[in-house]
């Protein structure tokens, strides 16, 4: 049965009526969750010099967000182990849909649309069985849940759409259960992996890190399908392997980025829009490092307390900190804005 709203959404999506676009939302270039000084949680749209375009309240702490490819819809995901995701109309802050994880599932904090904006995919924990799932929601039907597939690992955190329409999933490998919060239940046996899936859940390729305690957590995808991965080391920093990786499907994982220097922890990863650079942030030692996407050579590194969110600019990156700063990187870092909000983990680039 087609509801009126779903019908209208479908019309909008099909372009039969003049559809609203991101320009109607004040033309934000980036999205980020944040915490206000009063302790409220919000989703914020930022333009490409870090100025606020809009601010929309969230029911609890967010983590990442994802933007619809052409409609001015953003989906903000609850911080793990949250059970909500909110689809907001970024023109006016209206809630278009609230996604609740089904019984026995919670969200991990990331999601992605397919290239045409019809389906939304979310990473989820089937916590009774301790296995990862990918939830599938239909944007044309008011974000109705229409199915799910196996993530083919434990603890799927980030996932992205590939240029060929497939999915790439970072299965972090760490088992948790909402009864015990974020407590890691399987550090002795964890086996993270990077999985390439089609939307039917068929595994097209799967690789593991060189060491099983390097949890593959965050992803960025270049136009040609090169995948950048950010890892988090579960052990002593002094033993940490390299925590940044580049992977082309069918090939081996190239790793770089000294794990000890990154304090064993990469918070976010991004490609520059030119695709020539990869940036990794480590909030634990307050550092952003820029690498060459060709060979992993370190091109730039600077310190900034609690830096975490990062997204591509043409010739560099925009980055955010838990202390309210928005910074640009170029030849040298420059401060753009300073807000009173604490920017949360991820700065999300709008696909346009």
């Amino acid at each position, binding site marked *: 049965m087609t509801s009126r709203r779903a019908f209208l959404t479908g019309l909008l999506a099909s372009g039969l009526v003049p559809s609203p676009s991101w320009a109607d939302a004040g033309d934000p270039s980036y999205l980020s969750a944040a*915490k206000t000084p009063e302790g409220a949680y919000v989703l914020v749209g930022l333009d490409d010099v870090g100025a606020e375009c809009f601010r929309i309240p969230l029911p609890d702490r967010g*983590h990442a967000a994802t933007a619809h490819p052409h409609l001015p819809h953003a989906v903000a995901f609850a*911080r*793990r182990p949250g059970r909500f995701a909110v689809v907001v109309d970024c023109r006016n802050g209206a809630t278009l849909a609230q996604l609740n994880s089904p019984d026995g599932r919670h969200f991990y*904090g990331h999601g992605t649309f397919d290239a045409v904006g019809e389906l939304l995919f979310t990473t989820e924990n089937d916590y*009774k069985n*301790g296995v990862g799932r990918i939830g599938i929601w239909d944007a044309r039907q008011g974000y109705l849940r229409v199915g799910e597939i196996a993530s083919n690992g434990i603890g799927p*955190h980030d996932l992205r759409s590939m240029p060929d329409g497939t999915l790439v999933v970072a299965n972090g490998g760490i088992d948790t*259960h909402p*009864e*015990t*919060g*974020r*407590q890691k*239940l399987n*550090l*002795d*046996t964890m086996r993270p992996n990077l999985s390439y899936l089609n939307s039917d859940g068929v595994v097209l390729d799967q690789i593991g890190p060189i060491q099983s305690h390097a949890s593959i*957590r965050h992803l960025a995808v270049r136009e040609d399908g090169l995948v950048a991965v950010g890892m988090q080391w579960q*052990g*002593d*920093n*002094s033993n940490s392997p390299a925590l940044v990786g580049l992977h082309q499907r069918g090939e081996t994982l190239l790793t770089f980025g000294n794990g*000890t*220097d990154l*304090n064993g922890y990469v*918070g976010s990863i991004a490609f520059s829009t030119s695709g020539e650079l990869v940036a990794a942030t480590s*909030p*634990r*030692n*307050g550092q952003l490092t820029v690498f060459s996407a060709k060979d992993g050579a370190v091109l730039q590194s600077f310190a900034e*307390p*609690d*830096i*975490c969110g990062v997204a591509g600019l043409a010739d560099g990156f925009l980055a955010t*900190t*838990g*202390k309210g700063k928005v910074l640009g990187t170029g030849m040298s870092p420059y401060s753009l804005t300073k807000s009173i909000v*604490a*920017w*949360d*983990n991820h700065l999300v680039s709008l696909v346009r």
Partner: protein
Amino acid sequence: MRLAFVIALLPRLAFADPRVDAALETHVLPAFERLSQTSQALAEIKGCEVTDAWHVATEAWVAASHLRFGPTETDNRAFALAFWPDPRGGTPKALHALLAKEAPDLSTASIAGRGFYALEFLLFDPNFAENPARCDLMNALAQDASVTSNTILADWQDRYVALMQNAGQNSVYQSENEAVQELYKALLTGLQFSSDTRLGRPLGSFDRPRPKRAEMRRSGRSLDNVVASLTSLRDLAAILSEGTPNVQKMLDVAFVRALEQAAELSNQPGASDFALVSTPSGRLKVEILQQDIDYIREVAVNHLGPALGVGAGFNALDGD
């Protein structure tokens, strides 16, 4: 002028943070020494009469259980001593698997079937009481826990004490402040674990209390563990706040309040295993203890953290 020059030439070791030195000498090393000694005493008993020694060693573990960094995290040592909470019931499953084998190799066994929590099942759970292999397995698990505890202590003595004392000159602690921050984090983690997990799990919700989720309820150690942890954390808090008497006083007052509430609670029927969370009045008393612990944490975050210069980053602490 000359003095400044001389000081500049002294080895950096001489300037190790006095709070770190004091914590290592009077808190960390004694806690792991005691764990090692009591685990060994438990391992030396052959046969089935290990209950008393198990209580003593378990208490020593709880008193050290907030120090979850470095030596306890290498090779999953802490997990091999203490696999809890266990939301999927991995411990009884792993124990049944071990009991079914002739001479099980513990070093390759599921970590859920090892350590003090697994021993508690064998000692107190009626499902295991009749198993003929029970005492042999208890002796083997005690031996295994003793080896793990000794390894943790040796790692502290041979490696980790020096790393913390020489913070700022090694890759684990990249600045001097990071060692203090590590101990501060351990204090907060310990308080949070007692509030959220030791108390929060059995409290469940008002409509649905979950007394069977209490830590070590079979042996009736649930409340004892909270007290053992608070007592140990009180020592650490006093050491870290040395040099800021106001903060030290506030913290100690807060600890005393929580410990008094725990003592009052212990007089109630059903307190030792938190069975009393199922009654409204019992639940209230446990909630008050939880609030008292949260208050200690608040004092630490609002006063001790700033005094130590170790603010907690919004993203740095997120862990995702």
